[in-house]
């Protein structure tokens, strides 16, 4: 393979953005886990009363002066900006814009006071965030953006692969450089026994009190071996990730290494929350798409649930499109009840009147539910509705939910976007609407 072809394959390929969509969730979780606790102590961390330090090797002086002059109300305003953009990014709502805003607010708080949040791992997170800001493809799937756009097959839509590849390179170089620094440029992992010293650190030190610590503290030779082993693993892992055959092993060892790091040392959990999902970015997105489609096929074989809806209602048709996006594994087959000549074939208790008044779910086992109760039943098998599983089962939620559903169902003709749909006749079923997922 010549260089030009290698470059094309590495950076100019178009591939599904599903992995980047999943990675967006991990990044949002990591940012939240690192930033939010610092907001619980505003007086200590960010307001005028705080003890602040500034990272002048990272930020230019003029920017630090500008940020340091922030009055308290501005700091609170940035907290609001952070939470709004963080939630939007996590939900994939205007994914790129929310990523930009969230990253800017992270920078703001970093410039305001780096004492608690400023760590090496946070610098790594910021590099990742900047790359995520370059594109909005991470909002293609598993997102509110995908619901807004209404593209059922968005998860397999080919997109430029460059950002995912650069994230892979970032992780690989981080591991290589970490290992390289341990054995050169001032590192002492070959010439000395740093792991052994760590095992002797005082109780206030960075090492956790894990079960084998006292044993390791008695065996300098074993510690030296572990230290060398860590360096070798850090050098080897990126190679394992880039070779398809060894990739699963590389990812498994990498995740284990991060778990061990967290279990033995008080290091920022950014490493644990961010690096394993970054390792998963080495899995080919096509493999994930194939896995999803295999699950869809298996579900079709087992028999899908059927959701009967009013295909002449534009609001209902739009809602069903969103449902198809949420139904990643093809658990349910939405059918327009107008197109069913014999509904008793689906379930003996089904009538056109009932289907006209509410959506009706017929599960493979024959269980029948309608309206809000059908929605409650859908939250379990549809992974993208798992966030609502507990919410719809809270005390009082069914009482409120049924009433809200009944109101929406009764007024659905008013919820059409197009005026011509007000008569409830515009949503005549198309081939796409009635085909299975």
């Amino acid at each position: 393979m010549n260089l030009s072809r290698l470059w094309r394959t590495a950076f100019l390929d178009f591939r599904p953005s599903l992995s980047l969509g999943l990675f967006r969730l991990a990044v949002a979780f990591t940012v939240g886990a690192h930033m939010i606790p610092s907001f619980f102590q505003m007086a200590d961390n960010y307001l005028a009363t705080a003890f602040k330090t500034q990272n002048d090797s990272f930020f230019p002086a003029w920017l630090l002066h500008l940020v340091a002059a922030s009055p308290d109300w501005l700091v609170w305003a940035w907290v609001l900006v952070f939470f709004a953009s963080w939630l939007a990014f996590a939900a994939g709502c205007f994914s790129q814009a929310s990523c930009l805003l969230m990253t800017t607010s992270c920078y703001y708080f970093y410039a305001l006071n780096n004492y608690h949040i400023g760590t090496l791992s946070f610098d790594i997170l910021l590099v990742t965030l900047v790359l995520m800001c370059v594109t909005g493809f991470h909002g293609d799937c598993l997102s509110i953006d995908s619901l807004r756009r209404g593209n059922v097959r968005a998860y397999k839509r080919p997109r430029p692969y460059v950002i995912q590849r650069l994230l892979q390179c970032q992780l690989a170089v981080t591991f290589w450089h970490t290992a390289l620094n341990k054995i050169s440029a001032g590192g002492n992992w070959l010439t000395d026994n740093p792991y052994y010293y760590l095992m002797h650190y005082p109780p206030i030190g960075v090492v956790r009190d894990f079960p084998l610590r006292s044993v390791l503290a008695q065996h300098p030779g074993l510690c030296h071996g572990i230290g060398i082993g860590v360096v070798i693993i850090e050098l080897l892992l990126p190679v394992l990730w880039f070779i398809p055959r060894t990739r699963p092993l590389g990812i498994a060892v990498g995740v284990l290494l991060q778990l061990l790091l967290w279990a033995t040392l008080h290091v920022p959990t950014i490493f644990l929350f961010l690096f394993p999902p970054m390792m998963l970015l080495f899995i080919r997105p096509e493999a994930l798409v194939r896995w999803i489609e295999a699950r869809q096929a298996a579900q079709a074989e087992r028999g899908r649930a059927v959701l009967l809806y009013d295909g002449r209602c534009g609001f209902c048709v739009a809602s069903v499109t969103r449902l198809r996006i949420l139904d990643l594994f093809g658990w349910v087959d939405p059918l327009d009840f107008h197109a069913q000549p014999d509904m008793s074939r689906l379930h003996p208790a089904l009538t056109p009147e009932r289907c006209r008044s509410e959506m009706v779910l017929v599960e493979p086992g024959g269980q029948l539910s309608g309206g809000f109760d059908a929605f409650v039943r859908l939250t379990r098998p549809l992974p993208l509705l798992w966030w609502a599983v507990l919410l719809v089962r809270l005390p009082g939620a069914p009482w409120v939910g049924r009433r809200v559903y009944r109101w929406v169902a009764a007024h659905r003709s008013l919820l059409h976007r197009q005026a011509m749909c007000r008569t409830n006749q515009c949503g005549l079923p198309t081939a796409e609407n009635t085909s299975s997922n």
Partner: protein
Amino acid sequence: MVIRRNTAISLFAACWLLLFGYETFRAGYLSPLVLRHRSARARSKSGGLVGRRLPKFPLLFPPAGWIMFFNVDRSYGFAEVYALPRGGTEPVKLDPHDIFETTAVGYDNIRRNVLVGVLSRDRAPAFCRYLRRKFPQYGAFAVVYSQYPDVVDEPDRVISQVAYRCQ
């Protein structure tokens, strides 16, 4: 159209990789290399750039590359804060978790030795102000630098010295 798109992507990827590589190796490898080279040249003719490190790209990347526990030796230094109650004579050691109450998810920031950052004399006025606000019941504070000189051979020996006082 395709050529223009591929050119834009290629340019972005190439610039990013170059910048990423530069910042990865700048502090640990490139700067010492350049400094050595400049020192050698300076010996033959005086040069104004002698001793100057390579510039860091602002607003991105850590200051010294991706270094984690790269050098661990036998000593361990940490900070302690002692306070004198108003009207009292016996100083008490403040729990670092009371000084910085910000908790972190999944780890203890104090055990990560975050308190050591207050030892710098430049930070003394700000930290003293912070201590007075946080602990009004105390009249004076002393920030102490303590060190285990050898955690292996002398695990109980700690050398302490006052870094600064807040009166």
